[in-house]
Structure formats: C-alpha cells, structure tokens
C-alpha cells in the first residue's frame, strides 16, 4: 500500500521546508490557488470521500460546504491539534515529523471556505510539536505560501499557532473554540453549530490534523485515486496508534477496511511476549472495548468497527493481554474522565466521578453487590444527555468493560481482591 500520511516521515530532516518541497510539497497549494475555485476544491474533496479523522468521521467536504458563502463575517479555519484521546498519538507524529503537511492541509481547507485567518490549536503539552509548527509556519511565510497576495492571486491568509493549556475537553471542537477565544474551555450548546456561529461567533470549520494532512496528497493525485482506496463508505487510509501489550507498538498507516486481526497479528507482531489477547480498544479510550472473539471478522473501517459494537474513533488501539485486570483498566479510564470532565453540565460533572468512585472501591476490594448494575445505570443516565460527546465518551467504555468482563468484576467484588494480578 502506498503511504499517504506517513509518506514523508522517514526522509531526513522531514520537518523542514527543503525536505517537504523535495517531495513535491506545496505543489497542491500552488495548484489550488492558481487554478481552482473553492467550489471545485470542495467538490474534489467530497469526491475523495475523506472523512474527519478526529473521531466522528464526518465527511470533510460536506462540513466545508455548510459554511455560508454570503456571510459578511470573517470565516475561520481551525486545525485541531489538541490530540489528547487516551491511546492516541498519531497527530503528534505528523506534527513533529511532517509539520508542513499539516500546514499545507490547513491552507487548503482555509481556501475551501475562503478564510483569511487560520488557527492551529495545539495541545499544551506538545511543546516540541508546537515549535515544529511554529518553524514550519515561519518557513511557509518566508516562502510566500502564507501571507498577502499568495502566488499573486490576491488571496490573503494568515496562520496562527496557538497552544492550549492541556485540557482533554479542548479537543472537543466547541470547547476548543471557547478556549481559543480566551474563555474557559467549555463546550458550547448546539445549535448554533460552528459552521455558522463558531470562533468569535463567526463561521468556522474545525478539522483534525490527520484530516488536513491528507489533503495535499488528495489534490496532488486526484480524488479518484484516494477514493479507490478503502471501502465503499470509508475511503483512503487511516493512522492507528497502537499501544499496550503489543509486540510492535507505534503509529501505522492502514488502508481502510484492512482486517483488524491481521493488522494486530501480522503488522503489529501480535500480543507481546506470546501472551493471549484479552481485549482491545479500537478507537481511543472513549470507545467500547472489544473481546478477542469480537474482532475476528472486524475490518478497520468506520462501518465494520461500529457493527462490532465499538467505534473507530481516533484510531487509538489499546491492546490488553490476559495479565490485565479489567477492573483496574476500567478504573484507570474512569479516573481519567472524572478528572477531565469540564464540569459544565450536570450528568457528566456529577456522573463521571460517581462512576470513578464505584470503580475505585471495586478495584480496592470494597465493591458491593449491586455496584455493577449501578454503574451501568449511571452510565446510561449520562449517555446522550450531555452538552457535548464527553458524556458518551466516559459512559461507553465504563459500560463496555462491565458488560464484557462481568465475571471478572464480580469475582473482584466477591473476593475483595484482584483475581488476575493477585
């Protein structure tokens, strides 16, 4: 398979403009500015079938087309580089190794919606990545790819790299916008949606790093070539961050629709140390865990993973072998969500920590009969009732761990200790 997203990362000094240009970098940008209308660009990306890689998988071209063309307000393109999903580190690799692809993708998306100011909002902890982006943007400005009258076209575009303060919730697009506006990183109530009322109340599109980084290739090679890859509804390639008990952890680029089992066993070298697989989270910490038997026939595309009862999400694959205490794993994630809930709406603010407290006591041998049904009930009361998807993100894994490893939880409660790790 030809690499699209990781095509440059093994080139020496891949982060520099020189290296990027030697690989044809900014050729797509020039082509767009010199010869394509925004409509043509949007249609091209629609035809490619590219879907948002931040987790939701929403068609990128369609998202752009929601921006009102006749709005008198400025329009903003925001690159979401706030990668914080547990088990996900693909954007970080792209940013650190191939920042110009992200920058060029940002320029392309900005052009599609005719934005003249684009922001790259990067997670606070990614200081190295931020410096790489700063450097890339500076190089692009010097080269005339960013600024006034780009390629003599009369089109102006400014790009601002903004560092967040390290809150998971700021990866949620409206919380990101609140933070970028200088406010508390709280998700906004929707409607209205960012396409019409986003940053500073102006039409805004927020795209994930991986989504944007695919754009230069799509323009260079044509939508049809991209759309020829993958499945009917999940086109192209996707990055997977593989971690946990796996022989070869790392970031992998895989064609959509690739068999999950084959991916783990062959590409990633199988479960580490020859142990048995106990469970795998396919799409980052907020997605339901899958049992080994559930992934037998699953392919790595949005539809197949969803049919198996989980979601492809960010592609954060967390592998757990048979030495893993699933109570401990569930508590670990519950603790993360209890800590990261922004506290704005009642079910998430109160429910996440409630679930964490129950997981905590089960883990520490103080679980009670009825605790498992209580967590399932509480997670159900959070699901779908919150301002943003965070509530679901906390509720789904909690419920999945209990439903799929109930015996282990019950043993933990009955014996008041861990039956796996002793």
């Amino acid at each position, binding site marked *: 398979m030809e690499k699209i997203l990781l095509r440059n990362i093994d080139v020496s000094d891949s982060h520099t403009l020189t290296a990027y240009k030697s690989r044809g970098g900014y050729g797509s940008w020039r082509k767009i500015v010199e010869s394509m209308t925004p409509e043509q660009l949007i249609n091209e990306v629609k035809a490619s079938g590219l879907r948002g890689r931040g987790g939701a998988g929403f068609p990128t071209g369609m998202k752009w087309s929601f921006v009102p063309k006749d709005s008198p307000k400025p329009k903003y393109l925001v690159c979401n580089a706030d990668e914080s999903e547990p088990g996900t580190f693909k954007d970080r690799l792209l940013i650190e190794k191939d920042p110009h692809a992200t920058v060029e993708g940002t320029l392309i998306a900005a052009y599609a919606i005719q934005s003249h100011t684009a922001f790259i909002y990067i997670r606070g902890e990614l200081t190295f990545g931020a410096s790489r982006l700063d450097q890339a943007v500076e190089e692009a400005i010097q080269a005339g790819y960013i600024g006034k009258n780009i390629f003599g076209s009369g089109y102006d575009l400014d790009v601002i790299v903004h560092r967040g303060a390290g809150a998971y919730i700021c990866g949620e697009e409206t919380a990101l916008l609140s933070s970028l506006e200088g406010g508390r990183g709280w998700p906004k*109530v929707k409607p209205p949606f960012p396409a019409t009322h986003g940053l500073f109340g102006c039409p805004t599109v927020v795209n994930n790093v991986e989504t944007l980084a695919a754009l230069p290739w799509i323009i260079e090679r044509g939508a049809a070539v991209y759309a020829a890859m993958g499945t009917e509804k999940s086109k192209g390639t996707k990055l997977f961050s593989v971690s946990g008990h796996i022989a070869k952890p790392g970031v992998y680029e895989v064609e959509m629709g690739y068999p999950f089992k084959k991916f783990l066993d062959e590409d990633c070298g199988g479960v580490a140390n020859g142990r048995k697989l106990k469970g795998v989270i396919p799409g980052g910490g907020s997605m339901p865990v899958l049992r080994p038997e559930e992934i037998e026939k699953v392919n790595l595309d949005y539809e197949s993973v969803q049919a198996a009862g989980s979601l492809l999400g960010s592609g954060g694959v967390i592998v757990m072998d048979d030495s893993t205490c699933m109570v401990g794993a569930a508590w670990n994630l519950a603790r993360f969500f209890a800590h990261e*809930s922004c*506290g704005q*709406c009642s079910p998430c*603010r*109160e429910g*996440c920590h409630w679930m964490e407290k129950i997981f905590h*006591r089960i883990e520490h041998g103080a679980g009670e009969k009825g605790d498992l049904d209580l967590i399932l009930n509480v997670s159900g009361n959070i699901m779908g*009732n919150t*301002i943003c998807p965070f509530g679901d993100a906390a509720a789904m894994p909690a419920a999945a761990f209990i439903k799929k490893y109930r015996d282990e939880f019950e043993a933990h409660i009955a014996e008041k200790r861990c039956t796996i790790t002793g």
Partner: protein
Amino acid sequence: MDPVNIIIDGREVVTTKGKTVIQAAADAGIVIPYYCYHPKLTIAGNCRMCLIEIEKMPKLQIACNTQATEAMSVLTQSPKVLAARKAVMEFLLINHPVDCPICDQAGECWLQDYYMTHDLQASRFDARKEHDRKREIFGPNVVFDGERCIKCTRCVRFLQEITHTNELAVVNRADHSTIALFPGSVLDNPLSANVVDICPVGALTDRDFRFKVRVWYLQKTPSICPGCSTGCNISVETYQNRIARFKPRINEAVNSHWLCDEGRYCFHDLTGGPRLTTPLIRQEGGLVPTTWEHALQAVYAGLKSAGPLAGILSGRNTNEEAYLFAKLAKRISDDYALEVFYRERELTEVQKILMSPDRSPNFRGAREMGVSSNGGFESLMEKLVAGNFSAVYVVGEDLIATNGDREKVRAALQTLSFLVVQDTRLTETAKLAHVVLPATHFGEKEGTYTNRRGRVQKLNAAVIPPDGALQDCDIFLRLLDTAGEKNSYASVAEIFAVLAREIPSYKGLDYASIGDQGIELGSGSVE
C-alpha cells in the same frame, strides 16, 4: 410575528417564530422543569433538567435551546423524559449536603420542589461526598455555600450580562467546579442581591434575611418599592406584622425581574425605630401626649392663625394623600406653598440600570396632585431658611436629618410660629414641632404611586399600623372635617376615583384596573 404550530403532549399549541420550546410550553401553561434557564439571561443549557423528547430526534433535547418549528411534536411526560429528569435530579443531589433543616432556601428551593415532583427516590449514592467552601462571604449582601451549588451559572451570567461587573466565575473542573470571586473583587455592585433571587438553590443566600424567618411563614403582599421614583414592583414579605424582606416582582414595563440593593433593604430605615403611637402637643416647652381630637383642633387653629404656610410632603406619600393634602392647604390657608421632598445624587452606570437619582418614589404623582410650587423643593427650602414662612406642615420627612445644612434648617424651624410634623417616629424635626401627629409608613398603607415615567402603580398594606397612629389620608380627612369640609370617602379607591376626575392626566384611570402591573398615565378611557 409568524405563527408556528407545534404539538406538545398531543396538544396543539400556537407559538411564534423564534420562540423556544420552553417558552412556547410556558405560554401554553405546560410546565417544563429547569434550573439554568432564565428568560433574561443567555442560554447555558447546562442543568439538563429541561430535556424533552422530540419526534424523529434520536436523543432527548433541551427545551431551552430548541426552537419551535412547524409541526414539531414534543413530549414532556414520556417515560424517557421522566427518567432523564429523575437522573438529573439524582446527579444534582449526590454531592449536595441535603442540609435543608439548616438551609435558608428551604421552602423556596427548586431542588426540594423538583425532588418532590420529579425524583422521589432514596439516594443511591453511598460514597464520600465532595466538599466545597461553606459560608464564604461574596459581598455585603451575599453569602455562598459551595456544596449546595448546582453550577447553573445564573449568577455568573447575571453579572456578565446584566450588570457587566463580572465579579463571579466558575473555577476548577469536573465535580470540583465551583463559583468563585475573581481575585481581588467583591460582589458589592448596586444590584448584587439579585443573584440571591435567581439562585434556584441554597448556594447564594441573603445575609440580611437569612436565619430570620423560615420562608413558609412569610405573608407576601404585592407593592411598590419606596426607594426611588423608578417604582420597582416588589413583594413585601412579612412575618408577625414586621417586614422581613423585599423581593422583586416581575414587571417588564418597570424593573423586569430585578431590584436594586438600596431599594431592597430600604425598609430597615423606613420602618425601624420606636413608633409614635399618640399625638403630641407642645406645652410649657415640652411635647406631651394628647388626644387626636385636641391635636387636630390645635393644628387647624395653628395653621389658620399663622401667616404664610409651607407644606412639605414626603415623596413616599401616595397620590391620594397628596390630593387631600393639597385640598387641605387650599381650605385652610390663603397664602401657602406646597412641595414634595426631593434630593438628587449622581448615579453610576450600574446604578442607572434600575435606580433613579432621587429617593422620592411618588415625586411625580404628588406634584401632579397639586403639591407643587414655583421653583421646586430647593427653592422652597431656601425660602423657609430665609424666614419667609411662619407655619410649616411637614409630612413623613425629617428636614433636619436630610438637609445638608442642618443647623440653618433647625434654626429656621425653631423660629416658626407654628410647626406641624406628621410622621411615624419622633424625628429631630418632630422634636421642634408644636403638634406631632403619629402616621403610617409605606408598608402600612394602600394607595397609588406614579413613577418617574408616568406609570401609576398600586401600593398595598403589608403590615398593620400600631394602635394610636392614623393613616395619612385619615388625618387629612379629619383636618378637612375640622375645617368644615365634609367628605365621605369610604376607601382609597373612592379618593382615586375623585382625583381621576379632577386631575387632567389621570382622567379616566380606573383604580381597579391598576392591578399588580400598573397603568400608564393617559391610558384611561375618557368619556
């Protein structure tokens, strides 16, 4: 206004374009519970109490942020909705101390009310509750209990959107989220106590009121704030014949939902202190108790025989009282000047949201009744100090205490040949009087005030005056009687009916139609 037809619980409801489901339902008398929603604040959508089911939508939606659209079908009582409400109630209560017996909000707490209507289950939460700051002083009038707070952010939004003073913000995350003062700020803006009114729970309570009365003992009387001529609509809330607090009453033509702190607490000054319960008359240099009959005779004789008369009425006297006062002056004296007490001060931008520069709620009305002279109150006071009057009749104001140059006023009053003071207390001014008549304050009387903008509004008696004091109207009527003018008004309404015939701008106004929201001058039907 385009009509929009929606269906709520099977009932056809016609609303208008742009309205949300929560508004459309409220207009139709259908109750959807909520905490964070407030009609005067932006939509926060954070409490999730107003979740409703909408046909063809997979997830429950919040009614406060859902626009009513044509043919939308809404369910507010479906099993899914009831379960969600119960869940939200449970979430809001898990870290709440449930300390109702010692919470001042008990009895008017939305958590209590909604628990009874939407929850009613034993707590399933048996872990350790999160703790937060207790009784933190936010400002002179407001105290905060973090553990009772549901983070609805109504207070934060009020201070951002109404006063623009931004004293409070949400800090910290998850279930450690709490409301806090910005470093270095104090919640002391002129409208600060409104956050207590809009706090649906016991998180923000009123330092002046709390622990004085359990709210279920309060009797509530709709009335008008006597603080200034804005005429904010209030509920005078009393316990054992004493005013315990003012609460704002909604009137979009006047004060919307709000009340300023100065107005809110002004009843302490206006009603406190020992009351006069018997008329006093000056004998051998001192004031001694006398009968009403004797006192009124003395007033009549004193005013009749004196020279030029100045009549000064309080701005808190009603239109009916002012009408009779003007009538009385005309009956008794050939040479008189009448005025309504008036003082102005500079207002800040935040004060201007509600407050008027004066402290005379019925200044406009009383002057329209004829209690007015050329040059206004300042000029009349100058003439008084200059010795132009030989008799003064002061109602409800302590001229010495409220005047900048106290000694000059005192000296002028001391040289008068006759001074009548009609008041509730033995003020510095009253101590100089020849006759003191015990009267009533704003909370004890019925009548009308006309605010600065010409809205006639109704005052209702919230407490009973002490034995021995008379209503100001009764005093004027009895003096008129003494002066030979018989009147047979059976009620304040009858006096209003007469003045509404005589005073041009009040023509056609009907006392009964003033109601709880008031009426505009000039809105009367003129035959």
